[in-house]
């Protein structure tokens, strides 16, 4: 047991790591001159640091051989391409690359027209968003239709991470800071989700439009959860459950719903 109030506070460690502000640091220095226990605690930290500093830093596989790791990663990323963004798919041939570029330009131009027609307000801020890589067109050709489906799948895949994160949190133990990341992402995905929903409606893709609509509601509720308290999280989770959103997103992701 100790009579010193500072001994069991974070102050000694913060002093040791240089994390106290100048005034606090001055007070701690003065305190250390008087308090043998805190001096001892500081000395312990120094011993810990020196002992650990002598240990090797392990920042590579055995013998520094990364070749197996890189091979595995290459396999993993190529296996990921089915749900990865188009830009990360396997390297296209030059011809395929030009076709892809041309298709993207056509889609992008169509997307601007689509946004301009759907919204009387200037469309530039939305059209300029980087997350919508190729907004949908209103009268799709077959390749454009396929591209739209691929992009929708990719958007759902990105959004699924957020929805999964929200659905699996325990409201009793989750604090606002714990799901700040999901709230931020929800806000950034919302506009794109709305665009995809409207484009799917326009194309008569009812199932896609319905899932995008459900997702839109959940993202909207999440991004508007300013207090981020337990009730807010529970409300979002109820929305996810009632709309069976995760199941629907999985079905869409597997391609059978499109």
């Amino acid at each position, binding site marked *: 047991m100790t009579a010193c109030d500072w001994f069991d506070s974070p102050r000694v460690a913060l002093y040791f790591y240089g994390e106290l502000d100048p005034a606090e640091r001055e007070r701690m220095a003065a305190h250390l001159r008087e308090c043998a226990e805190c001096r001892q605690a500081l000395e312990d930290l120094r011993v*810990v640091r020196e002992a650990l500093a002598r240990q090797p830093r*392990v920042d590579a596989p055995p013998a520094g051989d990364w070749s197996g790791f890189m091979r595995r990663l290459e396999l993993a990323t190529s296996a990921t391409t089915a749900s990865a963004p188009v830009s990360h798919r396997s390297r296209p041939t030059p011809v395929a690359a030009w076709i892809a570029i041309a298709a993207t330009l056509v889609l992008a131009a169509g997307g601007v027209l689509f946004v301009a027609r759907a919204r009387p307000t200037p469309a530039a801020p939305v059209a300029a968003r980087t997350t919508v890589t190729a907004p949908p067109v209103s009268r799709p050709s077959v390749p454009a239709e396929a591209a739209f489906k691929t992009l929708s799948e990719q958007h759902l895949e990105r959004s699924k991470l957020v929805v999964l994160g929200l659905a699996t949190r325990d409201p009793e133990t989750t604090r606002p800071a*714990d799901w700040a990341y999901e709230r931020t992402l929800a806000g950034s995905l919302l506009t794109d989700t709305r665009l995809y929903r409207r484009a799917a409606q326009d194309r008569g893709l009812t199932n896609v439009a319905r899932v995008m609509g459900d997702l839109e509601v959940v993202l909207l509720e999440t991004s508007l959860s300013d207090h981020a308290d337990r009730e807010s999280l529970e409300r979002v989770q109820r929305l996810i459950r009632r709309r069976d959103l995760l199941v629907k997103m999985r079905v869409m992701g597997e391609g059978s719903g499109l």
Partner: protein
Amino acid sequence: MARAAGGDASAFQALVERHRALVYRLAWQFSGNHHDAEDIAQEVFVKVYRSLDRFRYEAQLTSWLYRIVMNACIDHRRRQMPSGWTPFTDDTELRLVNTPEERPGPETCAYGGELGAVLSRAVARLPAGQRLVFTMRHHEGLKLAEIAAALGLAEGTVKRQLHAAVHRLRDTLSAAGVTTGERA
């Protein structure tokens, strides 16, 4: 960064080569063995690969990496723990402070001098949240504010986790009969 996001495989490989040591080091500090460290690092880079189009500059990716590593480490640990385990919340903090890892420290930690080995095992036995914060502060030299920002946590939480880790390591010194300074 732009080339990697554009599908240039060699650019992505170069990006991995630039960051893999940091990722592996954090993963190893967390897992304490090569097998798990490699699994965690793989998971991290697959996530990076799938998310490249979200980052315009590499600096954005670098700060995000800590969070991906943290999530991958936590997911990895969660798969090994009973359901309901959570790493950082206030309600579980006391439990984290008072509950060491059930698994003994990995044998690979037992290198170097005796004290270093004892402390390395103690670090390996720290609860997950404390271990990550301690590693990022102590080994990576990140400030508390930087750790909080990278992990998306409140700075107070990071401070408490660091304090709890340091407290436990000091206890380890005492228990090991190490005499330092005025205690000597």
